[in-house]
């Protein structure tokens, strides 16, 4: 367990709307989700035997299949053992009940169908059909100067590559996926941060070409998912090459029950809403502001808590921020990573976030020390 203190700061107003509370009983007794979080437990190192570093994506298994048990936590790595970004190729599997960690997948560094190689991003999900889909935004030298287009990689439940998904709408699939999973069909939302991004400089330009694409999948029994439709539902977000953190762009996606897609716009320091995301046939551009600035400090991964509130991790400090999307109010920020090796504490440490199976807490990664942590 690392040195940690918990700080709950109240945002501008703590008046709640209960109009959007799927788990009303719990929420009615507690003013928001973060106020119920009091413990942070380091679960495991995320570094596999090959030395990969920098954990990014977190996906909680919805079912048991192959090597994975329901409730297992899959975590991928963006960096290789030399800590070069965009060269990580591994996914680990943490079993919360057995408290054990094993390697789930070691993907070849180069796949013929994946332009530029493999460097696993925050885009990862496990479907009810047992397939795991993970994004790649590869580099050959740890910088965007050698960035490739990347792809989505389809793995079977044994962690073996079963296929890839590429196309003109995919370039650097980056942020955590939002998913509507019906078993034999599924809808994925994937953010892209690779369009038009060049080498990082001290003054890299913001390129407003990041997009979010909706992929409709057909999943025949025993066969890998096949894309039946692709629609860009949002575009024009800022993206920026960065010498320190590789790339900055839309990183978090979460799907509300009313079909609204929420997007963390890291460059714009805002959370955006895309209406009718499951059905729309055109792009909504950069969507509507849900909230902006305030407690947000470069929002990254995004997840929806059982009470319908959004949780996002900040890239520029160690805070997770709770937002009520119905009102746009920022309710709390809890300083979950207070590592003073960074200024401000925890800056650059947080990235992926995922709810536990039971919804009573969330998992997050600490990139500074390569660990998976449970907040509960």
């Amino acid at each position: 367990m690392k040195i940690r203190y918990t700080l709950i700061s109240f945002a501008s107003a703590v008046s709640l709307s209960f109009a959007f509370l799927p788990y009303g009983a719990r929420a009615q007794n507690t003013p928001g989700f973060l106020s119920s979080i009091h413990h942070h437990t380091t679960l495991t190192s995320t570094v596999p035997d090959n030395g990969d570093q920098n954990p990014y994506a977190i996906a909680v298994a919805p079912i048991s299949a192959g090597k994975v048990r329901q409730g297992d936590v899959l975590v991928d790595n963006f960096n290789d053992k030399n800590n070069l970004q965009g060269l990580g190729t591994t996914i680990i599997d943490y079993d919360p009940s057995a408290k054990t960690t094993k390697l789930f997948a070691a993907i070849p560094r180069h796949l013929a169908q994946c332009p530029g190689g493999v460097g696993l991003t925050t885009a990862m999900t496990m479907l009810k059909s047992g397939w795991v889909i993970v994004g790649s935004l590869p580099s050959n030298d740890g910088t965007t100067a050698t960035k490739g287009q990347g792809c989505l990689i389809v793995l079977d439940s044994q962690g073996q590559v079963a296929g890839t998904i590429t196309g003109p709408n995919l370039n650097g699939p980056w942020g955590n996926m939002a998913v509507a999973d019906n078993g034999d069909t599924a809808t994925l939302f994937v953010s892209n941060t690779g369009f038009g991004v060049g080498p990082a400089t001290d003054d890299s330009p913001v390129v407003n070409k990041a997009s979010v694409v909706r992929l409709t999948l057909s999943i025949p029994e025993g066969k890998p998912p096949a894309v039946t439709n692709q629609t860009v539902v949002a575009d024009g977000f800022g993206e920026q090459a960065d010498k320190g953190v590789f790339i900055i762009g839309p990183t978090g996606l979460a799907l509300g029950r009313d079909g609204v897609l929420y997007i963390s716009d890291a460059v714009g320091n805002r959370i955006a809403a895309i209406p009718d995301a499951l059905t729309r046939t055109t792009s909504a551009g950069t969507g509507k502001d849900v909230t902006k600035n305030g407690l947000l400090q470069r929002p990254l991964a995004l997840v929806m808590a059982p009470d319908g509130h959004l949780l996002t991790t900040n890239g520029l400090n160690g805070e997770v921020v709770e937002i009520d999307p119905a009102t746009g109010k920022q309710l709390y920020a809890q300083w979950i990573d207070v590592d003073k090796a960074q200024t401000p504490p925890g800056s650059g440490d947080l990235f992926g976030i995922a709810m536990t199976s039971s919804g009573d807490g969330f998992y997050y990664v600490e990139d500074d020390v390569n660990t998976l942590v449970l907040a509960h």
Partner: protein
Amino acid sequence: MGNCPFSSRRGFLGATGGLLAASALTGRAAAQVAELAEGNPAASAVAGSISSDGKVPFHGVHQAGIDTPQQTHVLFASFDLVTDKVSDIVRLLRDWTEAATRMTAGQTAETLTADPSIPPADSGEALGLGPRRLTLTFGFGPGLFEKDGKDRYGLKARRPAALVDLPRFNGDQLDPGHTGGDLCVQACADDSTVAFHAIRQLARMAAPNDAANGYGGKKAGAANPYDAKPGVAVLRWIQAGFLPDSPPGETPRNLLGFKDGTQNPGSPYPAERAQGKLIGNGSFADAVWVGGEGPDWMRNGSYLVVRRIRIALQHWDNVELDFQEQVIGRKKLSGAPLTGGGEFAPLDLDATDKDGNLVIDDNAHVRLGAASSNGGARILRRSYSYNDGLAMIAERWPPWRQGLEDEAGLLFIAYQRDPRTGFIKIFEKMSKLDLLNQFTTHIGSGIFACPCGIGKDEFVGQKLFQAI
């Protein structure tokens, strides 16, 4: 600082674990420490003793330079063997033994002659400096026994089980140019020129004699200086290191600014309190010297692990003092454990604050290095700081700063009875969890079997080669 695999100069006085914690003592501090260490083997061992003229005897039960109070300079040299004949190695070790005996006594590597027609037998830069407590400690790397699957010298069967290849540790960014080696020599002295001179002579004796090609080499003892020879071993990497010449009785500080080496095997002070038990630092016999479990040539020898550890000094210097102290687990100025007392007070690994949180954090460096955190594992840390100027560095921690930074840190040197239950056991966990990892990167590495001490008529490692 205690408990680090970086270690302290307290050497036989013993440090409190951790990689950063170092070993022996400067000359001025040595006598005082020797008194404190009464009853310790280091105080009476022939090789570790110091004569008034600054000589550390080369011959003894143990090799000098392990339990010797730590000098202020080191030059660590690693060699690749380039010969295919074991007889060449034996001859080299004989030559090295003879030269080491002379140089540790303050003499030239070979007798100087007045013949103006041949290169001088000694390069001469240390003339008149005296021995300056020079010690030369020799080690055998895995490559002497087996290299690329080949048993080059018929020694494979004699490779000690404890001489394992070091595993890859989390965060390792090892540079092949600072890693490995078939032979090593640790030259320590209270003068950097004396240490450099010693390695320079030994390397020259081992190197190919390319005089015939007009490059001016000379093989030790060769009748014809122009008789080209292929050589026995060539330098693979070298690292210089230094310690502050701290006042007598003061534990020297490393580049983190912390005292390094408050605890080590042989310390008369208790090391730590854990789970209600107060435990000591262990003895050299327990932790450092190979016993009956090893082959005869290793008994009273020790296994050396060396790591070149870069420290992100610019990063560290901008970290709050209280966080620096939490990372280490000790107070910066006094060296005392965060749990109270003076520098040599035991770490209280059980102590909690009013909220029930551990005073010395779970991931604090001293806790992770403590014997009680590692199944009793202890090592002798005998490390030095290093500074190799500036280099373009991409830090491996958030916020991933990149730029021209100090290429400086710690030349971690540890001696132990068995690396499998010593450094490897300690660092396997430490490499994953230590808060200090956010400031340190291991960029060089080596493991060597340092054979037993050398008798008057023996050469280094003689017992190893006797049976073949």
